[in-house]
């Protein structure tokens, strides 16, 4: 058994057998683990809020006891739908996905650079600030400071904290990258770097928009003639809608998607023991994605009060997104499925999550492609299909990647096994069916709702569209309930594991039922991860 030099952890079969990698894992242990634990907490919070928010839209008879919540939402502004729903989405996108994504990025970057992470204490401070920012932002939304700009609801005072937190993250990460060992190059790094560069760019543009909103009443109150400044500041008029569309789709396709893809490009070949299928297309896929993906922003602009030529050009570019989606699908789904076939039993515990994530990535790409078709967009633009699209990215693709990643990473950080195979199985199936059903409900429901909303019969009203949508929303709420059970199981399992680990650290003894996950490195040909970037 190899023993790492710096942290001197005795490898009990869970840490990497490569002493170099084991030392790297040990160096990022605390920031990564802390980001995982806090992100799980936000996932639970976000899911509970989401179930609550969506149950508010149902008739009170459908669920026993619901009238209590409805009364609460009517009497108390904290619990009204328009505050709980954005709080839920932000808790999931920033609290859950982004926090866990930062943790995954730290681990993956250190590993692929083959160097211990630069300034881990700064990273730890970054995680703490990030969580403070999220908590402040969510509190602000509940108190009524929400800006109601999609995904930028957090009030300005929390935005500053998030900026500080991100800076604390970015500096050690770029430091780690620049200090990488010779030969420490991997395609996964390109995806990570794109995400890390895109986030400040997106966030800065989003903050500009919010800045305008803060500034304009002041300027107006100062008695400045409006026409002299209205248009001269960025973020006036419909530019707010345009910037927001650009921001939302940027967060999905240039922040969350690259973070997840980076991990998949690293772990899928490692776990399946195969080099990436059609690996020569991986670079093409990367560059076409970076160029084309942000154009999906125009999906929220078709037909609206925006310049028609921008929308037309945007639809052409975003329609080409099938190119990277097809290549990435061939790379990741191809490799993952071949690996499952080769290893039998679905290839262990981690690979099923990752291969599902790869499939959902393709599904999300297809939904983007559908929205790039002008007539389909007109039908689905204002329906629950759009929720389905965002759900695919955040809850579908990214969450599955993160779950798979955590099942792989946490034992290697702690040199300690997961506690129960049954819980992992329960989590997998609850999430699998929950997410598939939600997607089916919201996707099909979106089409039905759109057919009513866009009906050319003048007698059809919004009430008819709501009647059609309602049953799909009720079904979707129940499926989100199923997902939340899965997520709850995962949260409890991780908590149990960490507590047991702490107990062992204190007592210095081993528990009997420790070994559950097979360490994969032994079964994989050496250097397999490096073949990826070829």
């Amino acid at each position: 058994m190899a023993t790492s030099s710096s942290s001197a952890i005795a490898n009990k079969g869970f840490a990497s057998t490569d002493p170099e990698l084991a030392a790297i894992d040990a160096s990022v242990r605390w920031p990564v683990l802390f980001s995982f634990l806090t992100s799980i907490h936000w996932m639970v919070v976000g899911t509970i809020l989401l179930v609550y928010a969506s149950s508010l839209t149902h008739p009170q008879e459908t669920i026993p006891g619901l009238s209590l919540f409805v009364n609460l939402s009517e009497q108390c502004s904290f619990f009204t739908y328009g505050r709980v729903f954005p709080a839920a989405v932000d808790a999931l996108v920033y609290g859950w996905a982004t926090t866990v994504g930062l943790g995954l990025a730290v681990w993956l970057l250190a590993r692929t650079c083959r160097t211990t992470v630069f300034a881990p204490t700064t990273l730890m401070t970054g995680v703490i600030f990030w969580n403070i920012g999220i908590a402040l932002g969510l509190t602000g939304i509940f108190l009524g400071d929400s800006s109601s700009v999609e995904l930028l609801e957090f009030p300005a005072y929390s935005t500053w904290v998030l900026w500080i937190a991100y800076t604390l993250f970015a500096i050690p990460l770029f430091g780690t990258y620049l200090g990488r060992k010779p030969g420490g190059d991997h395609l996964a790094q390109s995806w990570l770097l794109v995400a890390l560069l895109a986030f400040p760019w997106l966030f800065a543009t989003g903050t500009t928009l919010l800045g305008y909103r803060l500034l304009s009443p002041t300027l107006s109150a100062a008695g400045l003639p409006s026409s002299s400044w209205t248009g001269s500041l960025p973020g006036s008029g419909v530019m707010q809608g345009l910037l927001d569309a650009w921001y939302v789709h940027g967060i999905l396709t240039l922040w969350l998607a690259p973070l997840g893809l980076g991990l998949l490009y690293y772990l899928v070949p490692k776990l399946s023991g195969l080099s990436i299928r059609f690996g020569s297309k991986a670079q093409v896929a990367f560059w076409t994605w970076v160029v084309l993906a942000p154009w999906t922003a125009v999906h929220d602009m078709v037909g609206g009060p925006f310049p028609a030529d921008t929308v037309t050009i945007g639809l052409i570019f975003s329609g080409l997104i099938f190119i990277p989606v097809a290549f990435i699908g061939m790379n990741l789904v191809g490799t993952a499925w071949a690996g499952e076939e080769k290893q039998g039993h679905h290839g262990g515990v981690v690979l099923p999550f990752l291969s599902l994530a790869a499939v959902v990535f393709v599904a999300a790409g297809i939904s983007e492609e559908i929205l790039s078709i002008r007539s389909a967009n007109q039908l689905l633009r204002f329906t629950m299909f759009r929720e389905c699209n965002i759900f695919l990215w955040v809850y579908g693709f990214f969450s599955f990647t993160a779950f798979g990643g955590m099942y792989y990473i946490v034992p290697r950080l702690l040199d300690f096994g997961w506690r129960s195979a049954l819980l992992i199985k329960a989590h997998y199936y609850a999430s699998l069916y929950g997410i598939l059903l939600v997607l089916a409900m919201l996707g099909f429901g979106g089409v039905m709702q759109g057919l009513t909303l866009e009906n050319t019969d003048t007698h059809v009203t919004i009430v008819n569209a709501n009647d059609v949508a309602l049953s799909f929303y009720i079904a979707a709420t129940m499926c989100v309930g199923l997902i939340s059970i899965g997520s709850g199981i995962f949260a409890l399992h991780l908590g149990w594991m960490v507590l047991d680990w702490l107990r062992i650290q204190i007592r210095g003894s081993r528990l009997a039922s420790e070994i559950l996950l097979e360490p994969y490195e032994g079964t994989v040909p050496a250097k397999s991860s490096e073949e990826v970037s070829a």
Partner: protein
Amino acid sequence: MSSTPHFRTFFYLVLASFFFNWLFLVVWPWTNLGHQAPIQDEGSTDITPWAISGAAHAGEEVYAANGCVYCHTQQVRADSSGADIIRGWGTATDLSDDKKQVTRRSYPRDYIWQHEVFLGNSRNGADLSNVAQRFPDAATLYRYLYDPYILNPHSSMPAYRFLFVRQKISGQRSVDALDLAGDDAPPAGYEVVPTAEAKSLVAYLLSLQKGYHLPDEKGPVPATPSNKS
């Protein structure tokens, strides 16, 4: 790895692709949309669209705080891009001649006075571009916010009772007090009155009325109106 470009090349390529998208999707539209001014009628001081009152601006904040935008859009698409006009969301009474109706799509110029623009992406509720058109007065709108089921038994809108207070009638009944009947009616001697937040929200909603024509309807208009030069 020879296939991974050097960091500097990689960095510049990524920045270039971001910049390309940002330039065409953010900066270029801004040069078109960012400098729009109201249109001044020839030989008069009237402008369209006209400015919004301070109460309505305060209402924008209430609208944002309570997340109305998560169910209501404020954009009417052209006939060729959706059924918004057929739903009646693009129709308003002409502000200059109340016997005429204006039916049209939304243009960027419609939004120039708003500090906070709520275009919206979801239609669980009706479009609100011309919501003032559908409510005859503030009292009806207060009642609708207090209990949507009174006016629309099929509504899926939540009630916003926290925007109102129940208070004891001291002396004369308040002019703003809601006319409520049935379950909603307060006990004798009490009345339900809108808070300041409800008043500004309603002022904002009643400002949402696009009963005027814009030169944009005839085709693109130069960003700087000719009457300025």
